[in-house]
């Protein structure tokens, strides 16, 4: 038993080794940037796709059912199974991770965008039409803006969901904080796992709080009675 082995064994006996963590601030920072980037990119791309598909569904009602069905189908496929389909096509890394993450945001976002726009009072829509707004201009300038609270609710759920899913992308070479979790899993060493879980939850909660603030800024007319 060399000293190093004894030290290693001592490390494993405690749930969190602060010493181990304190020597990895750079890695933690890099993982944070990567986790945040993977999350925001996925929800951003998912949002753009969702706006387009929602506009289609709102314009042609019959298309809503198939859109909901396909996105629901995608949502039901387990992430690891989806990776199994994507890796043969795209290899490992950013692209398959993003395809999977984006596909999980669509159902949540589309449902809330469509429901939110539906909730805009008919009088407002008529007023916009009367002021000469075209269909597209009304959709972006009036419908989407007034639907903001419902849409942000969808974005919040999508963000929190994706933050958790990003950890699993460690298995295909991405992962943000998931890299710590995978490392701890492979060495049955709890410290990096605890670190990964804690940071992931903190990030999810932080993003959620930021989005609540964003909602307040975007909806100054709803100052009173904000939930």
């Amino acid at each position, binding site marked *: 038993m060399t000293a190093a082995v004894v030290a290693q064994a001592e490390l494993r006996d405690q749930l969190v080794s602060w010493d181990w963590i304190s020597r990895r601030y750079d890695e933690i920072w890099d993982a944070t940037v990567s986790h945040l980037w993977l999350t925001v990119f996925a929800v951003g791309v998912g949002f753009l796709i969702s706006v387009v598909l929602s506009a289609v569904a709102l314009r042609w009602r019959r298309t809503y059912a198939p859109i909901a069905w396909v996105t629901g189908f995608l949502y039901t496929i387990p992430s690891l*199974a989806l990776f*199994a389909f994507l890796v*043969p096509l795209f290899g490992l890394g950013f692209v398959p991770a993003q395809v999977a993450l984006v596909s999980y945001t669509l159902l949540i976002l589309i*449902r809330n965008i469509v*429901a939110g726009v539906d909730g805009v009072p008919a009088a407002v829509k008529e007023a916009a039409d009367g002021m000469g707004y075209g269909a597209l201009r009304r959709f972006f300038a009036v419908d989407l803006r007034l639907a903001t609270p419902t849409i942000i*609710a969808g974005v919040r759920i999508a963000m929190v*969901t994706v933050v*958790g899913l990003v950890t699993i992308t460690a298995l295909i070479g991405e992962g943000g904080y998931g890299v710590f979790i995978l490392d701890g899993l492979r060495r049955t060493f709890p410290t990096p*796992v605890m670190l990964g879980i804690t940071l992931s939850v903190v990030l999810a909660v932080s993003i959620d709080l930021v989005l609540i603030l964003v909602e307040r800024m975007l909806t100054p007319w709803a100052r009173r009675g904000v939930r």
Partner: protein
Amino acid sequence: MGAAGGPLMEALGELWSFLTTDDNWWGEHGIANRTWVHVKISALSLLVAALVAGPPAVAFGHLRRGGSAVVGIVNLGRALPSFGILALVLPLSIQFGFGLGFWPTVVPLVLLGIPPIFANTFTGIRSADPGVVEAARGMGLARRQVLAQVELPLATPLIITGLRVSAVQIIATATLGALVGLSSLGSFITEGLARFDNGRMLTGGLLVALLAITTEVAFSVTERVLTPWVRVSGGGRSRRQRLRRGDPEPIPVDEVPNFGPL
């Protein structure tokens, strides 16, 4: 991605050859046994989660208390990465003699299964029409009878929804059990990743996806059969009719989103 056609056909060919090789089906690490293990651990976890979450949810819903606790449980469940819980339970399981594979996987599955069941059951019981409850009380039914004969039947659709959401999530996460030595369908995926064996990986992906979708559909059908009278709040039309007309309900942050196709 114009060149995807080549790799796609190639991958499908490898999938076909894996599936048509007899040896891949039988034995401890064969398709049959791994499917059985996957189903078994998922069913057991769902049962435990339902036993843990169901009774308190019914009690809270009946008393119409604890709404904010439900929100907390749901949000925490959504934010906790199940992958992390799995990795955390593994060393503990080894330390306390429960070993690899089955037990370290059951714990995160049960934890993950609790929030949807708890929240949906709670909401279902609590949102029984107060007028109906009043009427039942007025007809001389005791509180317990009201619960058994009025609140529980009215809550059935949401209770099944909770079980459905839970079951699909559990099946998805049981796949990750492969990382802690459980010989489940996920093992085909992790082995395929490690050995660059597309046929093996696609087999795992296909079977896990099929299992999840089948479960989703089975629960939906069960719900429809058991509750022919179903009405969804708002417009009094069923979810299916709403979908056909293209007016979805929004998913509020502080309630349980019930995802998935019909």
